[in-house]
């Protein structure tokens, strides 16, 4: 058997980290895609999850904390032939990068966004993240969010996202299905992937998630936006996983047909005579 196209480098993650299952699943999904590694760009911000692109044999863009989305959409706009996948964490995506999260949903550029959501800041060792559970002053649980928890799926659907899903690192088969569907979705696709942080999150453990995650019913209609909003609000004793919402909507490329024809933007050339004609229009 020949060597798979996508392989992994040695990682710097903690033993038992949920990221291992995610990277293993992602590598498998990429090998199924029939896209050569040089046509795939893995983008990350900063954080443990954001290091994913460091550990897979593909093009890698490790940007700034919180800023993976603007870079990723621009890469895709510049070269529509590339498959662009963002892997980064809950702090990077919803905290530092919150404004970009909101507005890149609206752009609907054809990229995929995998948020490794462990409901805590891991690399900085244990501070609450926007998605940490809400608690009160008498609660000694760790991590503890005295304010409201950020609900990424609810916000993504409300902001106009065209593919919104949740999965769990402990269910690799489900995760692979979600990843594949997200990558194949034309437009911005978000998969919020619950994963335990074994070192710091003593609340949202593997057992915690295992007990609560529940695949959506077979009859669930992912195209019903109001129902999806309602479903997205469920996060407690049961946590729904699966594609909560999807719709076919024009992508960024479809809305800019003049820039997205057969020739990717990066290869387009303008004749010097056309440039000179534009200059001469100021005579």
């Amino acid at each position: 058997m020949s060597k798979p196209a996508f392989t992994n480098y040695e990682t710097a993650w903690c033993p038992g980290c949920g990221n291992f299952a995610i990277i293993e699943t992602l590598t498998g999904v990429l090998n199924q895609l029939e896209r050569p590694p040089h046509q795939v760009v893995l983008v990350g911000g900063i954080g443990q999850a954001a290091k994913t692109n460091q550990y897979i044999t593909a093009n890698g863009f490790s940007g700034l904390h919180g800023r993976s989305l603007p870079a990723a959409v621009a890469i895709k706009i510049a070269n529509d032939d590339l498959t662009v996948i963002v892997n980064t964490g809950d702090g990077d995506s919803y905290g530092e990068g919150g404004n970009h999260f909101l507005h890149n949903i609206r752009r609907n550029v054809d990229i995929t966004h995998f948020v490794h959501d462990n409901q805590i800041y891991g690399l900085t060792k244990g501070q609450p993240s926007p998605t940490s559970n809400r608690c009160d002053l008498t609660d000694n649980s760790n991590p503890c969010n005295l304010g409201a928890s950020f609900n990424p799926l609810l916000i993504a659907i409300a902001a106009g996202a065209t593919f919104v899903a949740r999965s769990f690192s402990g269910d690799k088969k489900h995760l692979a299905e979600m990843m594949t569907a997200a990558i194949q979705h034309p437009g911005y696709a978000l998969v919020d992937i619950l994963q335990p942080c074994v070192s710091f999150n003593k609340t949202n453990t593997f057992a915690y998630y295992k007990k609560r995650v529940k695949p959506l019913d077979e009859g669930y209609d992912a195209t019903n936006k109001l129902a999806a909003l309602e479903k997205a609000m469920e996060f407690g004793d049961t946590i729904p996983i699966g594609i909560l919402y999807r719709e076919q909507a024009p992508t960024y490329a479809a809305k800019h047909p003049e820039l997205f024809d057969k020739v990717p933007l990066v290869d387009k050339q303008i004749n010097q005579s056309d440039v000179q004609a534009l200059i001469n229009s100021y005579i």
Partner: protein
Amino acid sequence: MYNILLGGAAGDGIETMAGLLEKMLKQSGCHLFTIRDFMSRVRGGHNFTQIRFGDQPLHAHRDTLDGIFTVDEKSYQEHQPRLSYDGFILCDEALAIDDFRAIKLPFKKIATDLGNPKVINSVATGALLKLFNIPLDHAAAIIKSNLRADLVEINLSAINKGYDLLESHYDLPLIETSEDLMLSGNNAIGLGAVAAGLRFYSAYPMSPSTSLLDFFNAHSSTMAIAVEQAEDEIAAINMAIGASYAGATAMTGTSGGGFSLMVEALGFSGIAEIPLVAVDVQRPGPATGFPTRTEQSDLKFVISASQGEFPRMVIALRDHTDCFYQTARSLALAKKYQIPVILLSDQYLADSTTTIPILNASEIVHYDEPEAPVPTPDHPYKRYALTENGISPLAIPGKSEALVRVDSDEHDESGQITESATVRNQMVQKRMHKLEGLKKELIEPEFWGAQQCQSLLVGFGSTSGAIKEAVDILNQEEKNYGALLFGDIYPLPTERLRHFCDQVMEIINVEQNATGQLASLIREETLISCEHSILKYDGRQLSVDDILTGIKNFKGGF
């Protein structure tokens, strides 16, 4: 050479009138230089446009006015101290202006009789053209191509009626300017970027850089430029970096406040070695400052913006021609050295329009990236390969089998995160080494004036035109003055400066800021001190007159 001012409140149509008048003057055979002074509001207040025109090329505005056209008393009161004794005030007969220089005409009545009081400015335009004995030959074509079809006829009638209201007073020699361009600084930057093959522009609207965003939007589909209005300046610069990584020639633009948000990503471009051009169209700061006015106070900020150390280049744009050629050059240098290049402009240059000789797309500096080596299993592509000149061969993702791995963390040759002290030293040295090559490409400041000068003025960016004209005036008496006008400003080219430093008795820095940032940079880099400084920071551009007055003040008269 004449200098007229059109004044009124925001919403009075002064800007539209000035735009049409400029075109008519230009087409009739005038050189001109127009500045725009507006308040940060959409209606009311006081705005003015000042048009200087004549038979010689112009590079700056002057303070003394030959004429004022005003729609309100406020503009008269504000500007009449600058009006020459034999100048004129053109206004409607109803205005309460008691001045022997006033020419009061029934503009409003004529406009009303024509059926639309709003054409009052066109009546006045006709009167202005007649005063300066400018033929009406070009009016019809210009009105037709700039106004809505249903407004053409009435405005042309208005211009003709205004033309018949009075006799010519000035005799203006008209020359051949039909091959010249007339454009604003921001439009010249836009054209330079288009000529250099710009494929991606991202920005958040911010005065006075916004017209750049508007320019690229207007030409997006015909010139194949993806234009993204970002959610903030942080997104704007990170988008430009992403597009550049993917191989698109990319640029972002903003003013000082937005640039402040961009600085972390500026360093990212530096460490990740991703080509980037960022335009800072300066306005007075700090914070919100004076949104619609001008200053040159970001120099020391942009040369040191962002934590850490990395090579960068800063080019100050001196005039509209610079805006075109230096923007193109900045994009080429950013690619060649894989560094961020910052273009410093300002509101004065951005919004002023002038006539300049034709700009040639064929004359710009291009940089064609050599093909990166083809990777093999034994020799995979290394994005940060150590090389003699510090520049690593650049591969574009998807264009070959090379895997292009870039990182904001310190990294090894392959782009992998590292914490190795040895690799850190290698990478810092590699990046900084690029400066050696870059320094060889620096363009020395333009010298202007008398080669044997004893007094040397130094300036950078948009004050250059005023400095040149001031030097010319000073040298009419005694050929004692020279000026060095910096375009490339960081790294600072020092050869010509050292040469003149040995010759002159005094150096005078002329700057649109409060602290003398150029003088400070010169001293830091060369230990050369400036004896005197002429500084202005009230948001209004240093004029030729300000420079002459400044020199007179510390010379005790001349």
